[in-house]
């Protein structure tokens, strides 16, 4: 059936670094608990009463919301978790299905090594404890896209537990007010995913494609509210939220709904709900079901999964048949937190900048390429990349790799700026032109538009002198102590030089003349 999935409880990688408005009146901020992750499928939910923000209304008891996320992430592998069928999107229906995937009698699951490695890597990256022994279970329920009538998962003893993830949140209105939060990961588990159902309501039928389920990353949220100090409230599950924004909205609206129900004397049902994007609120999903009873049992066809480290590796073991956690740990790529730390150390940038650079696909590489080719200071590069460059991208909704401005071009521009060949405002003009017209280099644009800064200081002095002569009143004002008057003079000189003079230099010259 479906492609191998990894389920963990946390926000997906990209989303974790996004700025979440922490100013929600429910103060949902930190209340994110992780649940398990499973490969090709599900995670178990765990409600962890983390620190929650409170909402108070008219002096009533404060409410605290508790949120647990189940994240299903598809493992990047060639074949499925328990069969040798291909994992590929957009294939003809049921073409990537083996006899096992179709649950034909007599077929057995065979565990994919790569999936186990991926699970261990994920566990290590999320600072989990890797269980050297983990078990597989069956979770039974009936649905057309689950032909076996059960899903193989890791409910009792999953492959990794007790991890954590640090992420940043925009605490206030200012983008610089970024605080770091940590969220716990209860567990990570390997599991199967289901197939895909297409509901044909017209003909009252469901079409089933057992290749794989939709969505490489899916999140379900478990939400409950309670008064701090009291036991946890009844939770509801909101399923299949596919974007961080809708996830946030769904959670917020569900918290609101629960508080509203409870404050009006009603009860919360332990049910599954879905988020109605149009209405902006959650709606009940499964009816008449009451509490699901999955009748968990050990998967009888799979022995325990044993993992080793260098110390415990059995001598003479077939390397294909054993997995060494230490070996995997050594091969972990540099994790984002390490990359960010390096950026801060190497370039002296603020932590929030390092987050921003990693938050956008390809941006870090772009930044690093610019740094390589320019002699401008890293802080300048950071500022330009994060503010101006990123600003232009966002405005036109482009990805970094769709940018009309190459790292080389920006590097050249910043070099020009650095050696004061052009002014800051001229540089912005050049950038705009670079964005609009392909193929031109910054130097070309500068000479075309005659944006070069006046290098001739004598000529500049002459202009200053002329302006001062032409505006005796203003000069008097300055001499009388009006500090703002000098800015007027600077403005006049700039105009006279068609903005080709550096305001700092102008100011210096004027001050020298005025004091003499």
């Amino acid at each position, binding site marked *: 059936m479906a492609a191998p999935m990894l389920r963990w409880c946390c926000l997906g990688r990209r989303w974790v670094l996004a700025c979440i408005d922490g100013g929600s009146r429910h103060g949902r901020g930190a209340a994110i608990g992780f649940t398990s992750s499973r490969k090709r499928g599900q995670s178990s939910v765990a409600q962890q009463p983390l620190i929650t923000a409170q909402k108070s209304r008219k002096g009533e008891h404060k409410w605290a919301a508790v949120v647990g996320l189940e994240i299903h992430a598809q493992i990047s*592998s*060639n*074949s499925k978790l328990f*069969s*040798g*069928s*291909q994992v590929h999107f957009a294939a*003809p*229906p*049921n*073409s*990537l*299905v*083996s*006899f*096992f*995937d*179709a649950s*034909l009698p007599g077929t057995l699951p*065979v*565990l994919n*090594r*790569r999936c*186990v490695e991926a699970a261990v890597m994920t566990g290590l990256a999320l600072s989990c404890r890797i269980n050297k022994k983990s*078990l597989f279970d069956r979770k*039974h329920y*009936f*649905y*057309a896209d689950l032909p076996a009538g059960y899903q193989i998962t890791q409910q009792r003893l999953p492959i990794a537990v007790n991890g954590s993830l640090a992420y940043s949140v925009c605490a206030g209105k200012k983008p610089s007010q970024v605080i770091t939060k940590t969220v716990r990961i209860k567990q990570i588990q390997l599991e199967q995913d289901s197939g895909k*159902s*297409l*509901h*044909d*309501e017209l003909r*009252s*039928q*469901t*079409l*089933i*494609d057992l290749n794989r389920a939709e969505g490489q990353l899916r999140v379900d949220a478990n939400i409950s509210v309670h008064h701090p100090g009291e036991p946890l409230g009844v939770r509801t599950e909101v399923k299949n939220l596919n974007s961080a924004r809708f996830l946030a909205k769904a959670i917020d609206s569900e918290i609101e709904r629960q508080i509203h129900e409870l404050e009006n004397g009603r009860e919360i049902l332990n049910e599954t709900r879905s988020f*109605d994007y149009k209405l902006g609120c959650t*709606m*009940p*999903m*499964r*009816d*008449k079901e009451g509490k699901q009873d999955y*009748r*968990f*049992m*050990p998967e*009888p*066809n*799979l*022995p*325990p*999964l*044993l993992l080793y480290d260098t110390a415990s590796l059995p001598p003479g073991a077939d390397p*294909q*048949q054993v997995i060494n956690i230490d070996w995997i740990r050594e091969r972990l790529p540099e994790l984002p937190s390490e990359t960010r730390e390096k950026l801060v150390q190497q370039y002296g940038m603020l932590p929030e900048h390092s987050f921003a650079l990693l938050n956008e696909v390809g941006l870090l590489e772009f930044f690093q390429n610019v740094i390589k080719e320019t002699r401008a200071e890293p802080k300048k590069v950071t500022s330009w990349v994060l503010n101006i460059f990123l600003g232009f991208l966002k405005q036109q909704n482009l990805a970094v790799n769709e940018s009309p401005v190459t790292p080389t071009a920006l590097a050249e521009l910043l070099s020009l700026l650095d050696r004061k060949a052009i002014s800051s405002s001229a540089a912005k003009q050049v950038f705009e032109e670079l964005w609009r017209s392909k193929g031109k280099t910054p130097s070309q644009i500068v000479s075309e538009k005659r944006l070069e800064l006046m290098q001739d200081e004598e000529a500049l002095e002459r202009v200053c002198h002329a302006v001062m002569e032409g505006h005796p009143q203003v000069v008097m004002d300055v001499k009388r102590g009006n500090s703002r008057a000098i800015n007027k003079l600077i403005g006049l000189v700039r105009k006279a030089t068609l903005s080709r003079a550096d305001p700092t230099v102008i100011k210096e010259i004027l001050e020298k003349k005025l004091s003499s």
Partner: protein
Amino acid sequence: MWARVVRLGFWSWGSWRRGFTSKADPQGSGRVTAEVIEHLERLALVDFGSQEAVARLEKAIAFADRLRAVDTDGVEPMESVLEDRCLYLRSDSVVEGNCAEELLQNAHRVVEEYFVAPPGNISLPKQDEQEPFSHN
């Protein structure tokens, strides 16, 4: 926790046994309530059909309950008879699939290359009456 699950030929009941007996009667006098039967029928899609079948179930539970006579204090539960076996790890290569035609031959109904199933578990707001799941 998982008590020692011994398969006395009651394949599906093993792990549920613990569930029912505690629901039905902690002392194990063996009555299984109609409520529990209904719950089971819905969960497992089995049809008890007759009082005889329920009586058989109760006898089976009573028989399995004799496990309680065994003192398992300090004994590590056995999760699987395969616990000493090695779990074989397959290398990540594509060796199966591409047999849609064969697989679809098994299906009662097919639309293009999809299996066809009755509708089920559709979101509440749209539907009014939900047909009970009919097997076949």
